[in-house]
């Protein structure tokens, strides 16, 4: 494996499957009386969050703690960062505190890449979401969830079709998922109004469509993305009602899907907007499970990046 996890591109197929397999074993820990492993004892994981994201932060925090790592939460709000401290200075501060891994969430695309490549810091860098770029651990937990239900928790996702629906343009979840699904042999289909698809989408790996109803019957899973409030005022679509009518997942649309098809959502959901409550709570929905799987997958990533020797991990053995 590479030293850092900045993009879903950092994982090849074998490595992605290894993460999922490792997560599968680690998921069993949550059924045990002592939900803790000593593996990362004495290692320090810093959650460096320049953007609020309670869900992702506590997921990484739980994952780190279950592996016995020391966790330091560094929230940019109320810290020297809000007083204009640069990313470089923050990184160097963490370096002198002996951080072994930095889990970074940043509003600016590419910030984790800088942290990983600029020699400011020796720590392993894990991207917990950067701007409108990527969110690779979210993609891993989505892949894990799909694999568990549709591939008996084993191997890759060869042959599956997955629709990703909503604000593809601004979604880091969509980007990482498109890459990882492709790596694992599945076919992602991006579904959105043309205004919310990036220019050049036709060159992405995968397919795209403006018509949710046409796509739904073909797919094995559908991933509904949250529609941010600020998009509504920026003329990406006329009204929330029209959006919901064309791109919202409701019970009627769910009926057109295959029986085994899964409904995923990275959360938090806008019930009634991109997904109705009925669908969110249906038996096809695995939204709640995604949260638990998130902890297992992040444990796997932390273990695989941090559990071994610090030297470039031998790719062949």
């Amino acid at each position: 494996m590479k030293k850092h996890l900045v993009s879903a591109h950092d994982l090849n197929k074998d490595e992605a499957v290894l993460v999922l397999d490792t997560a599968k074993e680690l998921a069993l820990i949550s059924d045990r009386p002592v939900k803790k492993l000593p593996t990362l004892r004495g290692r320090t994981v810093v959650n460096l969050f320049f953007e609020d994201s309670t869900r992702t932060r506590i997921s990484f925090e739980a994952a780190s703690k279950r592996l016995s790592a020391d966790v330091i939460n560094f929230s940019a709000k109320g810290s020297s960062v809000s007083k204009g401290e640069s990313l470089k200075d923050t990184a160097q501060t963490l370096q002198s505190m002996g951080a072994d891994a930095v889990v970074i969430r940043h509003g600016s695309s590419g910030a984790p890449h800088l942290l990983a490549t600029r020699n400011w810091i020796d720590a392993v860098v894990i991207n917990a979401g950067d701007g409108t770029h990527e969110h690779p651990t979210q993609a891993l937990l989505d892949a894990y969830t799909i694999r568990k239900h549709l591939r008996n928790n084993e191997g890759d996702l060869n042959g599956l079709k997955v629709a990703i629906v909503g604000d593809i343009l601004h979604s880091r979840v969509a980007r990482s998922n498109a890459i990882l699904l492709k790596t694992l042999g599945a076919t992602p289909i991006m579904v959105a109004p043309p205004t919310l698809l990036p220019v050049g989408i036709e060159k992405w790996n995968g397919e795209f469509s403006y018509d949710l109803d046409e796509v739904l019957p073909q797919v094995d899973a559908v991933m509904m993305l949250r529609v941010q409030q600020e998009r509504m005022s920026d003329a990406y679509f006329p009204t929330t009602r029209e959006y919901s009518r064309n791109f919202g997942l409701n019970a009627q649309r769910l009926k057109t899907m295959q029986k085994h098809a899964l409904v995923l959502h990275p959360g938090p959901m806008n019930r009634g907007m991109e997904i109705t409550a009925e669908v969110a709570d249906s038996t096809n929905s695995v939204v709640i499970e995604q949260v638990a799987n998130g902890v297992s997958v992040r444990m796997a990533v932390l273990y695989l990046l941090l559990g071994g020797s610090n030297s470039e991990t031998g790719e062949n053995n």
Partner: protein
Amino acid sequence: MSANSRNSARVVLESSDISRALSRIAHEILENNKGSKDLVLLGIPSRGVPLANRIAQKINEFEKVNIPVGSLDITMYRDDLRLRPPRALAHTEIPDEGIDHKIVILVDDVLFSGRTIRAALDALNDIGRPAMVQVAVLIDRGHRELPIRADYVGKNIPTSMSESVQVSLADVDGNQESVIISAGEQ
């Protein structure tokens, strides 16, 4: 493996020897624990798991009882994690009965430094509280680095540090069963 080390390899146990050794271990376990009550066998992956299954099978042949068998992956408890690249995890499966108040017998192929068993004891500690823990191994090759000993040994084989002991089992390695000692690194 160099041609030279291959030449110096010698077979110390053949398939039939392994089978006999496991039978004896099964008998000793029953004798030592005055029957099969509360026994749980936990194999340490990878080769400890089929060995545990075969010991259980022998016990079944002798006593007509099914004793619970599971597996215990100790990777996350190893003390040399930081010395090597991270390894893939093996499967841990604790029998439904659990291990609380049971006599847990850890099964592995080779007992060497004792560090694997130490890790297994730590792992057990996070899973439950057995009444007693015992250790069964096919080969004890000596060179202990921790105060750990096996309760049941298939065969004691004195080795030098530079030799390697290779256990081959049909259901893990898919070839002729044997225990081979060869010079030099594996």
